[in-house]
């Protein structure tokens, strides 16, 4: 019952914002907002792998690319036909586009999840940095393959993707990944993931199937990265393999670590900060990226555990600060 209320409330809020925002924000701010949302999805989904489970993955851009290209190809070859057919049948355009987009995103997410399964499997044998290198290699392989396949545009990129993803859909994606992360963290399965992060041997001794859970973390994380990639594709209407280099993966890792490994709200906060920072620094032109990198270094030196550590921002605790202090025993 509560869950239904939450879902309905979120959808209503997003719909309302979707109507209001494009009128109030200029296109530049709107674009930054959308990219913030997509980066939040990427950071929170990577946090499931790196933060919750302690598996070091540097291939997140690869999952994003698979989801982006998969969903874009679907929309270009099938989805557009659906929308035309539905529109001919009298269905309003936003609903027809939404249905096609949802299918495309689900498909992109599932493709990425399949890749996540394949990448997660070697974690049976590989630990730590060796696993990290396999994920990195996987991400690069995906990019090089995309660059060489003419059907998806190769190195020239893939133009003309229908721009169906508006604020509502990105918001829904963010809400989805947040809800899954939060519920996972409070479930038995989430506890199993944390146990693996803290001590693999101890977790195994307590009967946690560590391989299955590691693969599960990869599958869920990859799924949402794929959906984020799909939203990215349907927002910009254009994809280029150069958007998915390992530098993109590293950006996402920086968000997760900067926010505090394992903290969902930390990932959100850091994703927003790291998306805004280069934009805020635009006036200083050529010094922009130098300042950006210096700030990452200084932040890590001053707060090595990340902005929030492993804690979560909670409204209740925040409000509690303003209440008169209760006596503690």
């Amino acid at each position: 019952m509560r869950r239904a209320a939450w879902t309905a409330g979120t959808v209503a809020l997003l719909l309302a914002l979707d109507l209001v925002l494009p009128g109030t924000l200029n296109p530049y701010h709107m674009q930054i907002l959308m990219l913030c949302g997509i980066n939040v999805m990427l950071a929170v989904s990577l946090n499931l792998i790196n933060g919750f489970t302690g598996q070091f993955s540097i291939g997140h851009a690869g999952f994003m690319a698979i989801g982006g290209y998969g969903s874009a190809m679907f929309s270009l070859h099938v989805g557009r036909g659906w929308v035309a057919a539905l529109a001919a049948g009298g269905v309003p355009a936003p609903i027809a586009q939404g249905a096609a987009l949802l299918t495309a995103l689900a498909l992109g997410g599932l493709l990425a999840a399949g890749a996540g399964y394949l990448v997660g499997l070697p974690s049976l044998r590989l630990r730590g940095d060796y696993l990290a290198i396999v994920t990195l290699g996987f991400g690069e392989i995906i990019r090089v393959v995309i660059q060489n396949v003419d059907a998806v545009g190769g190195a020239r990129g893939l133009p003309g993707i229908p721009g169906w993803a508006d604020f509502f859909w990105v918001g829904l994606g963010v809400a989805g990944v947040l809800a899954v992360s939060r519920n996972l963290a409070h479930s038995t399965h989430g506890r199993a993931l944390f146990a693996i992060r803290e001590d693999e041997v101890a977790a195994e001794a307590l009967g946690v199937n560590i391989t299955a859970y590691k693969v599960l973390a990869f599958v869920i994380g990859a799924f949402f990265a794929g959906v984020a990639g799909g939203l990215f594709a349907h927002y910009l209407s254009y994809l280029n393999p150069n958007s998915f280099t390992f530098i993109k993966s590293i950006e996402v890792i920086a968000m997760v670590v900067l926010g505090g490994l394992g903290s969902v709200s930390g990932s959100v906060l850091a994703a927003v900060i790291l998306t805004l920072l280069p934009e805020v620094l635009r006036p200083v032109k050529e010094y922009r990226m130098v300042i950006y990198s210096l700030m990452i270094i200084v932040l890590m030196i001053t707060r090595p555990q990340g902005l929030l550590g492993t804690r979560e921002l909670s409204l209740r605790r925040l409000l509690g600060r303003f209440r008169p202090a209760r006596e503690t025993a």
Partner: protein
Amino acid sequence: MSEFFQQLVNGVTWGSVYALIALGYTMVYGILRLINFAHGDVYMLGAFFAFFAARWLGVARSPTPAGALLVLLISMAGCGVVGYVIERFAYKPVRKSPRLSALITAIGVSLLLENGGILVFGPDPKFFPQVIPASNIPLGGGVTISNQQVIILLVSVALMLGLTFVVLHTRVGKAMRAVSHSHTAAALMGISVDRIITFTFVLGSTLAAAAGVLVALQNPKIEPLMGIMPGLKAFVAAVLGGIGNIPGAVVGGLVMGLAEVMVVAYLSPTYRDAIAFVLLIVILLVRPAGILGRYAAEKV
């Protein structure tokens, strides 16, 4: 067949450059368990330092072997200083922090060097002067080797032998091996762990600088982002050989260089990067700790 031997020569030359860079990764990893992402950018700085040294010393206009050697040494010294500064001001403060924070710091340093490089050197590629005029030496059977390739091979083999000597036969090398076993135990034996870590960074940076100069000799186009891909590949090579293992880095570098050159020659130039990584994944699945890596028993 001569085609194959020609590619073999090219692959070994290219691989020895990877090996030089990989050595820096592997030494730092062996001691700090840190992937020093900025290492590839130190390699870039090496090429640029040599570029400016060659211009100021006039070696660019009147090339002499002694002048070329001097340029190489200046660049190595310059990068040694850079390595010291990076270690002192970026990595030392996070040494007691979780490993991933140190990694993000390394990524930050890498971004800083790349963007600082764009700011200082400009984003456009520069042309490295011919400090050694190119000529080809026939090896018989239609196989040739350029004098630059000979220099790359000689210098990198000399540096690797030098490094092996330092690590195996000097007091500081012994201390390095001790620190890589255990910081605490090494400190208890009276070794200044901080000094050894600094020394390792400086040593690794000078090797990266040498690699940068050697590559610039053969491919004279240098630009501030040139370190990203070779750095990444060299790191992969270090893992391939078994990270933390010095002979492993050399083996990994050679495997990587040969694989790349052979893929370009016989399969497809555009799939070069992908196949390097496929090879990596296959090798790691068969030998999870790298080619020469040792399996550490898991202690409970």
